[in-house]
């Protein structure tokens, strides 16, 4: 993945507007967080291949860390801490945030076909 280029990502987000698309949304701090640090908490959530439709999409940020918001008929899809992006395979838009060691902390991905695996 490469550092987010806001205008390019914005254009890609808009490709998915008003279409039925598959979303992968995830955040994690790993299964070993409280094992290596007894004061830490294991927290994570993901939803994969949920079919959604949104009418607005925007990425906002300060050049280092970005937020994305997708407005649906009855709610929002939101991710914070995004730093990198790529287009994978058949035009799938992958956005992710990584920590100093390159570990994934958050991801938001959109695709017109279901994600594999």
């Amino acid at each position: 993945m490469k550092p987010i280029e806001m205008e390019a990502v914005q254009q890609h987000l808009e490709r998915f507007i008003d279409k039925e698309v598959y979303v992968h949304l995830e955040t994690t701090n790993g299964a070993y967080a409280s094992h290596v640090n007894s004061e830490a908490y294991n927290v994570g959530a993901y939803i994969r291949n949920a079919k959604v439709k949104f009418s607005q999409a925007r990425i906002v940020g300060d050049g280092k860390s970005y937020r994305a918001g997708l407005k649906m008929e009855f709610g929002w899809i939101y991710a914070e801490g995004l730093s990198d992006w790529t287009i994978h395979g058949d035009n799938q838009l992958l956005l992710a945030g990584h920590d100093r060691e390159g570990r994934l902390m958050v991801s938001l991905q959109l695709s017109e076909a279901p994600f594999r695996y």
Partner: protein
Amino acid sequence: MEKHVVVIYPHPDDESFGAAGTITKFRKQGVSVTYLCGTLGEMGRNMGSPTFANRETLPEIRKEELINACKALDIDLRMLGYRDKTLEFEDRQTVAEHLKDILEEIEPSLVITHYPDYAVHPDHNALGAAAVEAVRHMDETKRPVVWAQAISNNFPDVLGKPDIVNDVRDIFDKKMAAISAHKSQANGVLGQFQQNPKNKAEILEGAKKALGKERFYIWDYDK
């Protein structure tokens, strides 16, 4: 001497971090070893350091790494096709039946797996429990011995002294070769054992300290 050893863990790299030394000792004796790997670690957060994988490329990358690690260890590999982080939500009896079918085919004399409830990662606990269950369902005369590996910080206090302690520091280069095959995971995991290492020697030192002894409990089916 063992006839055939089957290792049952859920993730590509569990075999290398957890049991590569023990596996190497068995292979040196000419004992066949088969690794049943539960998932492809699809949801891992280590993407290489520096990052070279992403959520969608990670499964194929880890599959390749797993194949390479098994080559380095000179063992057979079967991938079970479950999904990372979901093993505890699968029906345990169904997973146990799946494992039992494979064990009845291979007829191992020893099974190595995680110690249920003391193996930190939910996938470790769930697959370990299913493996213990699978062997329990086998014909008593054909049951392999089960070595269960605990990882949790509290395990020695609760479970007592492990029955098997394999000091593998004399063959640690083999273990590191297997770990290093997992390129996307190795640095991230090794980094946990040593805060701000100055060089490779320090990383190796930290790894040796944390991973130099492989400990197992012999599962007691009469309890």
